[in-house]
């Protein structure tokens, strides 16, 4: 029994991606592709929930453990919400059906990444998740700035992929196998193991835009359509965290220095991300730096190198990407400069108050998801003896309030007379409401998810 039928969610996404390319031709309706994609992604999420945890499948190349299942469901669900938004808003001047296909491919790759237990599968699925992102980031093909950002993203992403691959090749050399299980079981390889592990993680840091390997993110995001950034900067990160959890579990025995490396990247990311986000005036750049900072908090949880810490990292990532996507979607609708948001509370009060929930969750104010995410990440880190890092983290979360309030300020306390009139879209409104509701629900009713993930300190 290879268990390949357990990959039904992935098959659904694959079929949906191909169908999305053609359905608009057949039905002749703009947005049909996105609608189909949303339905397929939702079906994939439901299927992933039904299938649940299954252990190793496909001869051990994939494994559906609690982390993989959680991330899988989150990726599919978030993709569905994103595509629902796309139904209403589209990709600006470009037609959206290719975007739908690429989004589904990227989601497919991300889902495979989360369950990959084999270096080859891991790398291939990583590329499957990243390649469509190059196109999405350069989706405005007639906009030179956009293409420049996309090219930058492409070149740097390729480089970091190669760094990752370089590290992976050493791991294969150490264990004589591409299986993570075999690598974990192999005798510690001393300095070589450390060397390989650090390379692997540097590659992952770059993918996750952790400092000091984050430098591509602000430029790439600022050059891309905000609608693309909303997807590319969020959903693949879920997979990235899952991969880091899987690799850390396998590699910490080989590289005892790894938790310290994670801690170092955590503190650099928290400091640099939060401080650099402060002066930004472009929401995409601001969110790029805030993404660096949030990756820092994820790494902080990972650096505890305990099961509870790993689970906390996954929870934190979910709690971070949901509001982050919603904020970037607002930028896609209203304009990407902070000043474009001026007077939003008058024009669209529901969106304005929804953004309060989202931004406060990103700061870590209860009762939203972000607060529990921080609580678990900090608790895991303190219990692993990283009190100093946690002090940095809490001070930096106050700093983060400073720049998130720079987004709130124009929304509530400024006015704008030349605001473009936005056609109302029910599907976009539903998508936004779902993201806000999820941000609240993950804070107030987190119990089921936490028990599934195994966030437990005693």
């Amino acid at each position, binding site marked *: 029994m290879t268990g390949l039928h357990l990959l039904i969610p992935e098959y659904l996404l694959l079929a949906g991606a191909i169908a999305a390319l053609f359905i608009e031709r057949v039905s002749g309706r703009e947005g049909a592709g996105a609608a189909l994609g949303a339905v397929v992604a939702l079906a994939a999420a439901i299927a992933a929930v039904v299938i649940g945890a299954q252990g190793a499948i496909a001869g051990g190349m994939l494994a559906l453990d609690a982390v993989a299942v959680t991330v899988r469901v989150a990726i599919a669900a978030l993709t569905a919400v994103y595509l629902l938004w796309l139904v209403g808003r589209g990709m600006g001047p470009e037609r959206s059906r290719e975007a739908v296909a690429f989004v589904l491919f990227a989601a497919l790759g991300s889902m495979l990444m989360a369950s990959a237990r084999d270096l080859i599968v891991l790398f291939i699925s990583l590329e499957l998740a990243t390649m469509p992102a190059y196109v999405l980031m350069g989706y405005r093909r007639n906009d030179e700035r956009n293409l420049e950002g996309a090219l930058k993203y492409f070149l740097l992403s390729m480089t970091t992929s190669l760094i990752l691959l370089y590290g992976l090749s050493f791991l294969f050399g150490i264990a004589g196998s591409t299986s993570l299980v075999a690598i974990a079981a192999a005798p510690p390889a001393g300095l070589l193991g450390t060397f390989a592990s650090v390379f692997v993680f540097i590659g992952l840091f770059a993918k996750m835009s952790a400092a000091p390997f984050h430098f591509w993110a602000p430029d790439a995001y600022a050059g891309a359509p905000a609608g693309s950034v909303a997807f590319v900067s969020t959903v693949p990160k879920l997979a990235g965290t899952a991969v880091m959890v899987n690799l850390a579990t396998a590699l910490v025995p080989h590289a005892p220095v790894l938790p310290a490396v994670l801690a170092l990247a955590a503190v650099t990311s928290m400091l640099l991300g939060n401080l650099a986000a402060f002066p930004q005036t472009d929401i995409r750049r601001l969110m790029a730096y805030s993404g660096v900072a949030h990756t820092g908090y994820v790494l902080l949880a990972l650096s505890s190198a305990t099961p509870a810490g790993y689970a906390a990292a996954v929870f934190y990532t979910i709690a971070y990407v949901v509001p982050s996507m919603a904020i970037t979607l607002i930028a896609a609708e209203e304009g990407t400069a902070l000043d474009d948001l001026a007077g939003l509370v008058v024009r669209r009060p529901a969106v304005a*108050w929804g953004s*309060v929930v989202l931004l*406060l969750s990103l*700061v*870590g*104010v*209860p*009762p939203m998801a972000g*607060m*529990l995410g*921080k*609580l*678990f990440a*900090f*608790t895991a880190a*303190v*219990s692993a003896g990283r*009190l100093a890092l*946690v*002090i940095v983290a*809490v*001070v930096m*979360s*106050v700093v983060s*309030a*400073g720049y998130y*309030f720079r987004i709130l*300020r124009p929304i*509530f*306390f400024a006015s704008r007379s030349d605001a473009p009139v936005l056609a109302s879209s029910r599907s976009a409104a539903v998508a936004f409401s779902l993201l806000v509701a999820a941000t609240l629900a993950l804070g107030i009713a*987190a*119990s089921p998810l*936490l*028990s599934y993930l195994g*966030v*437990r*300190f*005693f």
Partner: protein
Amino acid sequence: MLLSAIVFLPLVGAIASALLPKERASAARWIAAAVTAVDLALVVWLLIGFNVAGGMQFVENRTWVVQVGIEYHLGVDGISLSMLLLSALLSLVAVVASWKQDTKPGAYFAMLMLLEVGMNGVFLALDFILFYVFWELVLVPMYFLIGTWGGPRREYASIKFFLYTLFGSVFMLVGIIALYLQGGTFDITALAGMGFPATFQWWVFAAFFLGFAVKVPVFPLHTWLPDAHVEAPTAASVLLAGIMLKMGTYGFIRIALPILPHAARQWSGFIAALAAISIVYGAALAFAQTDLKKLVAYSSVSHMGFVMLGIASLTPEGINGAVAVMFSHGIVTGMLFLLVGMVYERTHTRVMDDVTGLSAQAPVAAGLLAFASFASLGLPGLSGFVGEFLSLLGAWKSGIPAAWVVVAAIGVLLAAAYTLRMVQRVVLGTPSKAVEGIPDLNVREIAALLPLVALTLVVGIYWDSLLRYVDPAVRATLALMGGS
């Protein structure tokens, strides 16, 4: 269920009032008045059913985030009851006082009610995470109240307020995590008296101190307060000074003392010193102010110093006094901010020299202002005296260096100086131009002030009306500290 109803009833009102369509938004004030009145009635009902000697009562304890042991745990004792009553009463008063709020009334009254959810919750929560949720929840509506309906420098004041208090509370979160990992629970009552190691206690106390002291505020962490108060709309000032400052001192009494008794003794000298400095420094700054609202704001720093002094004494007298000052300061400063706001509405100035001679034009306003001022400076027979006297008594009897107590006592004198100077100019004096022809207080305004006047007299004359609730809870807290 009663406590949950008291906490979450205003949330229902807030949602209802926020969802009102724009053209019907002025109905929000009626929703707010009804909700805060019913909430106050529920608190009074609680008060009637409260057993003075019964310790923690009306306890509700349900699991919430069961994986990490976060509970939905509420309960009320004499100390929290007095604060809860203050919170419910001042919320209603704040609603009545802002009856004429015509700028976005739906959102405004929603924010007032949301604020009440947080304030009520803080005084009832017995689980650390629940406590933290309510503690932070308070910041959001206050940020919008100052930022949207405040004075000219409202944006600066609101963000400063938010960041200062957030800075304090994130350290509190670190303290909570440390206690959780050491004690294995988020339950505040279960952690009390666990007897943690001395060094551990010292550091956790430091974390909590930052969180609470910013809120109180204790010198030198007080600089957000004058800005926030001056820019805040009247009702927000009333709730900020009346209740939110008390959250900090309440935290010391409910959390820091019983859970970290050893550290509390170690820190008491330092806290007493800061308290004495706050008293004198706040009073001196109040003396230098020409803006009435700033004067009241700085006097709050001074009065909250007495609360801290009483807490630092770690004696039954001192802590009873601390709670009494908290209660009295809540009602008296509420009155002062209301009156300053009412005068400002009429004269459009808060500069002391521009609003002299009030008694000739508006005798009721002038009389009430004089009354509130006397209560504020601690005239015996009015509520302000009780607490300050007991705080000083407790501090004198305790191990606090006598010098600090003497310094604090000088603060009483200074309070008389700046308050009487204000009364002399504003109430007496020759009527200034701005004051001429202004109408006296109307019935609604008097109705807002009257319950506060009554409580000032009742507590001032018959101390036991307050202390019979507070004292058993104070002794229970000290018993948890073991000895002293």
